[in-house]
C-alpha cells in the first residue's frame, strides 16, 4: 500500500529534489564548488582561518592563564618549592632532625647555616627544605584522595538521582555537620600519626566538598541536550559519566582542587603544630610547633617556616584564581 503511495508521489518529489539542488548540491557538485571557491578565496581569509585553527582546544585556556601575571607568580613560586622538595636529599643529605651546631644561631650568624639553628641545634634551612617534601606530598596526595572519593560519590549521586542521591547526600551531610578539624584530630589520634595516616585522614575530611560540587555540576549537565543525544546513540552509563559529563564538569573541580592542596598543607601544619604529626619527619608545622616555646627570644624559628607556608598557600591561591579565570567560559570570553 505504502509503496504505491510513494510512486504516486514520486513526480512531485522529483520536482522538489530538482528545485532544491540549486540550494544544496549533492556531494560531487559540492566538491567542485569547493574547488572554485578555494580559487577565488581571498588570501587574508585563508590566513585568518589558519590563525583561528591554530588556537583551538586547551591552548586558548592556557594562553589566558599565562597572560595573567598573578598566576605566573604563583606558578613560579610553587615550581621553586617543588624543585626544592625534589632536590632536598641532594641539597641536605642526611636527617634534618640531626643536631649539627650550637643552638640558637640566628640567621646570617654562620654562613654554613644561613637560616640559623633551632633550640636543639638543628639546621633551620635543612628543616624547611625537607619540610617542603612533607607539606607538598601530604597536600597533593590528600587532595588526590579527596578528589577521587568526592568525584566518584558526587558523580553517582548527581547522575543517577533518586534514592541513590538521597542516601549519598545524607552521608555527605553527616560529614559536613562534624567540625572538620576535630574529626581530623580524632582520626589521627585513633590511628598512629604517620605521614600516611595524616594524608588519609585529610583526604577523608575533604571529600564532601568535592562531592557536593561534582553532584551539582552533574545534576546540571545531566539535563543537557548532548547527554540525551549520547543516550540516543546507545552509550552506557559509565561512558556517559566519564566521557561525556565529567570533562564538562571538570573546570570548577580543578579550581577547587588547587585550593584544596593549600587547605591540606595548612591542616597538616596545624596537626604537626599540635604535636599530632609524624614525630619522625620534619614538617613546616612541626617546626613552628617546636619554635613556639621560644617565640619571644627566637621568633625566627616560627616565622621562617610560617613564611614558607604562607607563600606556598598564597601561590596555590593565585594559581586557583588564574585557573578560574581561564576555565570559566564567561570570563574568558570577555578577556579574549
Amino acid at each position, binding site marked *: *500500500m*505504502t*509503496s504505491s*503511495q*510513494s510512486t*504516486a*508521489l514520486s513526480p*512531485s*518529489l522529483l520536482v*522538489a*529534489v530538482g528545485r*532544491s*539542488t540549486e*540550494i*544544496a*548540491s*549533492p*556531494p560531487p557538485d*559540492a566538491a567542485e564548488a*569547493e574547488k572554485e571557491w578555494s580559487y577565488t578565496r581571498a588570501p587574508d581569509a585563508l590566513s585568518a582561518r589558519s590563525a*583561528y*585553527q591554530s588556537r*583551538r*582546544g586547551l591552548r586558548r585556556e592556557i594562553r589566558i592563564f599565562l597572560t595573567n601575571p598573578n598566576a605566573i607568580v604563583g606558578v613560579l613560586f610553587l615550581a621553586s618549592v617543588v624543585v626544592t622538595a625534589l632536590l632536598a636529599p641532594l641539597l641536605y643529605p642526611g636527617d634534618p632532625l640531626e643536631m649539627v651546631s650550637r643552638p640558637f644561631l640566628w640567621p646570617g650568624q654562620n654562613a654554613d647555616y644561613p637560616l640559623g639553628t633551632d633550640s636543639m641545634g638543628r639546621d633551620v634551612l635543612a628543616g624547611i627544605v625537607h619540610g617542603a617534601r612533607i607539606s607538598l606530598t601530604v597536600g597533593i596526595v590528600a587532595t588526590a584522595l579527596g578528589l577521587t572519593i568526592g568525584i566518584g560519590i558526587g558523580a553517582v549521586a548527581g547522575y543517577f538521582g533518586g534514592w541513590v542521591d538521597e542516601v549519598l547526600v545524607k552521608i555527605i551531610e553527616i560529614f559536613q555537620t562534624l567540625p572538620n578539624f576535630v574529626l581530623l584530630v580524632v582520626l589521627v589520634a585513633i590511628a598512629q600519626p604517620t605521614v600516611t595516616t595524616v594524608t588519609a585522614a585529610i583526604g577523608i575530611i575533604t571529600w564532601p566538598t568535592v562531592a557536593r560540587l561534582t553532584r551539582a555540576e552533574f545534576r546540571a549537565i545531566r539535563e*543537557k*541536550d*548532548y547527554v*540525551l*543525544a*549520547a*543516550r*540516543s*546513540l*546507545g*552509550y*552506557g552509563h559509565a*561512558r556517559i559519566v566519564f*566521557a*561525556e559529563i565529567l*570533562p*564538562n564538569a571538570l573546570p570548577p573541580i580543578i579550581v577547587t582542587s588547587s585550593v584544596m592542596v593549600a587547605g591540606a598543607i595548612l591542616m597538616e601544619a596545624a596537626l604537626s603544630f599540635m604535636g599530632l604529626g609524624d614525630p619522625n619527619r620534619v614538617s613546616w608545622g612541626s617546626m613552628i610547633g617546636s619554635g613556639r616555646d621560644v617565640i619571644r627570644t627566637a621568633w625566627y624559628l616560627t616565622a621562617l617556616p610560617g613564611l614558607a607556608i604562607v607563600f606556598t598557600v598564597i601561590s596555590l591561591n593565585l594559581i586557583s584564581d588564574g585557573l578560574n579565570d581561564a576555565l570559566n567560559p564567561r570570563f574568558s570570553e570577555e578577556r579574549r
Partner: protein
Amino acid sequence: MTPLMEVHDFAVGFGSAQPVKGVSFDVTAGEMLAIVGESGSGKSLTALGLIGLLPSHARKTGSIRLAGRDLSDLSERQWRSIRGREIGMIFQEPMTSLNPVLTVGEQIVEVLRIHDKIDRRSARKRAIELLDLVNIPEAGRRIDDYPHQLSGGMRQRVMIAIGVACNPKLLIADEATTALDVTIQAQILQLLDNLRLNLNMAVILITHDLGIVAQWADRVMVMYAGRKVEEGLPQPVFEHPYHPYTRGLLAASPRAEVGQHYRDGPLLEIPGSIVSSLHEKGCAFRPRCPDARASCGQAVPPIKLISDGRYAACPLVPSQFGRVSHDALVGA
C-alpha cells in the same frame, strides 16, 4: 511490503496525566513520515518512546515493533544496542546537542567504535567520509574542530553524520530544522532526503512547519492532544483536510494567496489552546472545534479509514467532504 516499524496503540502517562493516548502508525523502509501538531500534542514524547528514552517514571503501554522485533519490554542493555545502530535520532538544538569538550571527530569515532567495533584509525577514516557525506567542506580539517567552531547548520550536519554513522534503519528528526534559518533548513532537508534515498533509511520528521511537510514528506500524520487525528499523503491531506484541526492548522499557516498578506487582516488562528485532558469524555478538539456538535462530547471519535490511505478521527467527515474555504472555518 511489511513495514519497518509498527507502532500499535502506544501511550505514555505521567502520574494522572496522559500526554500520549494511544497512537498507531507504520513506517516503511526508506519512507519519510512527517508527524505534525502543535506544542503539547505528544509528538516529541512519541519520538522519545520509539527510541526508549522516556523518563523512567513514565508509564508506557502499547507495542512498538522494529522489523518484526517487539521493543516494548527490552532491557536497558538491549535498548543500547538498538539506539544509534538501528534507530538514530537528531534533536532540535544543534547548538547544544554536541558535547562542547570533544572534537567533532571524537564524537563520530566514539559512536562508530561502540557499535561497529572497529579500530580507531578506520573509525577516523569513516568519520571523514561521513562528514563528506553530509556535505561538510574540507572534512579532513573540520574533523578536528570543536563544536563551537562550527555554525548551527554545520553542527546539525555533524549531528546527522553521527545519527547515520552506523547505518540505522530509521532516523528520527525531532524538530531538527526548527532552530535553523530557512536556507539552511532547505539544505538540511535536502541532505536528509538524499541520505534516506541513498541509505534506504526511513525518516520520521517531527515538525510543526507544514511547508516542510508539503515539500518533503511521503506521508503525514497529524497529532492532537496525544492522538492521531488524521493521516494520509501530504497533497490530499493539505488539499482536502478532513479533520477540523488539520483545517485549522492549514488556515493558520501563511500562504502566497489572496487574503494572506498581513495588511488584509491578521492570520487566522485556532481559538483556545490544548486543554488539560484529564477526565476527558469526548473529542479533545471539541472546545476549539468550529463544527462541534453535542454528540462530540459523548465518546472519543475513533480513527477511521476514510479512503485509500486516508485516516481521520472525526465523525463529521463524510458530511463535510470537499474543500473547505477559510471563511467557513472562521465561521463568524
